[in-house]
């Protein structure tokens, strides 16, 4: 008998064509290529893993220091260090493919063409269940954030990827914008199957001893519990503005945090910085969501999506 049949609560969700066994995933850049935490948490317990951001060419990333801890959060400026799509497919994908969960590849580029090319190559290589377009990484000079703050460019990138792959396409939105719903509508119109939000808030820290920015890259992306109120607000706004499912993230540590996102309108959630604090967090979040459903007579987690505004 299938283990799922035993479950009193249905946890499976459909994230724009990616079918997740439960709504809990791990976010891009915080879970490597899925191997690093495998000893701490069986990947089979996860709805999906989003891989570290990939680019057409290899990238050695930013100079050090790349990290700074902040109140209830952290700044990072990794700068998309990655082996490049070719080496990824040759050296890493064979192992990634074996992971017993859904795999979402996260892609970045300097041009529309870069994005389309990387997406196409990933689909051709096989073993990837969805493409997450990172139009919002604040840590690279060219591309990245510009695409994420301009609705026209965001739509262009989305359409190019959409046209070059049949895989479900998720667009990851930047929170560093005046109106996140404007970008959301633009990329959904351009063919996005789902949206993920939020990427990191642009922030910085200054070392008062050296009187210089702490990060070599000066600015970095703020993540962790500190950003949760902003993230929940944006999920709430976007969920009411578009019809595609949302992968909600930003500061999730516990099941209560994850439920805030789901009630705000997220179909699934991603844990990023939370993994660093507690590698068992995804496990605890799945268990906590299940317990919450049981306690509240909820038979299917899908009933909770957007329940804070859907009446």
């Amino acid at each position: 008998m299938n283990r799922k049949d035993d479950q009193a609560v249905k946890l499976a969700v459909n994230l724009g064509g990616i079918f997740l066994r439960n709504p809990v995933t791990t976010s891009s850049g915080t879970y490597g290529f899925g191997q690093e935490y495998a000893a701490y948490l069986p990947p089979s317990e996860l709805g999906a893993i989003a891989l570290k951001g990939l680019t057409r060419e290899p990238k050695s990333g930013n100079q050090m220091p790349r990290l700074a801890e902040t109140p209830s959060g952290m700044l990072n400026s990794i700068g998309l260090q990655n082996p490049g799509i070719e080496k990824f497919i040759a050296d890493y994908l064979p192992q990634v493919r074996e992971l017993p969960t859904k795999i979402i590849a996260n892609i970045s580029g300097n041009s529309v063409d870069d994005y389309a090319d990387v997406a196409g190559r990933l689909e051709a290589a096989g073993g990837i269940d969805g493409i997450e377009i990172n139009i919002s990484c604040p840590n690279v000079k060219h591309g990245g954030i510009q695409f994420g703050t301009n609705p026209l460019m965001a739509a262009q990138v989305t359409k190019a990827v959409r046209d070059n792959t049949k895989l479900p396409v998720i667009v990851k939105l930047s929170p560093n914008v005046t109106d996140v719903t404007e970008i959301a509508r633009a990329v959904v119109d351009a063919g996005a199957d789902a949206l993920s939000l939020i990427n990191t808030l642009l922030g910085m820290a200054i070392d008062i001893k050296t009187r210089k920015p702490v990060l070599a890259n000066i600015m970095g992306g703020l993540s962790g519990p500190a950003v949760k109120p902003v993230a929940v607000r944006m999920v709430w706004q976007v969920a009411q503005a578009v019809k595609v499912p949302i992968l909600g993230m930003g500061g999730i540590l516990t099941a209560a945090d994850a439920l805030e996102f789901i009630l705000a309108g997220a179909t699934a959630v991603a844990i990023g910085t939370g993994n660093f604090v507690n590698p068992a967090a995804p496990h605890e979040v799945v268990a906590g969501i299940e317990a919450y459903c049981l306690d509240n007579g909820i038979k299917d987690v899908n009933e909770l999506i957007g329940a804070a505004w859907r009446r």
Partner: protein
Amino acid sequence: MGRLLKATVLANDQVLSGIYKLVLAQEWLAGEAKPGQFLNIRVSGASAPLLRRPLSIHYATGNQVEVLFQVVGEGTKLLSQVKPGEVLDVQGPLGNGFELNGKGPAILVGGGMGIAPLVFLAARLREPICLLGSRNGQLLSSSGGARLQEMGLELQIATDDGSLGRKGLVTELLEQTIDKAGRIYTCGPKVMLREVARLAIEHNIPCQVSLEEHMACGVGACLGCVCQTKTVQGDKRHSRVCTDGPVFEAREVVWE
């Protein structure tokens, strides 16, 4: 491979103003730990301070694991307030640790709190010679010097103020002793490591350096803790201090 563990605090004593010795009961960890590896310890149940704190294994035996740490900020301050009987959330052992096998006499070069992990290393090597440096004698003794002495090892000491051993730098001691060395192990401040590495490379002696970087995950997932390394061919890349290190061969590191 590290694990997520519960460890009961057996003791957490101040050994000198601002320096604490934390003794944990964790049998599996004690059995698994290798010199040069570290733990990633959660210092608060609240969301601030958020990240775990990386701390080297000072010693491990039986079912006990020891950590020697200095209070430098909020996280280590909270850790210093932990009382015996409390249960800590500890991740480890992490990192690659020192390679114990090698030829010829082992020379250990430790500076400041970098002496702490050398205690565990010294216990696993055959009669290493320990060159130790610190600001003053008290600090040096409290960060592992006294323990190494109790182990009956040959110590050579240098302090900034001359309050113990020679007044000067530990690297000056190394210059005098390096001809005896079959291999070198070192841990301490970056400037010291760089000089030790320079001497070792100059004398063509294998030298393992233990590096330190700010960390987020500690398991190789976030790429936050990298350092520049190079291959024999001279190709440079970013290696993760947490999993590719913290121990590197001196000539692999790009010292700029």
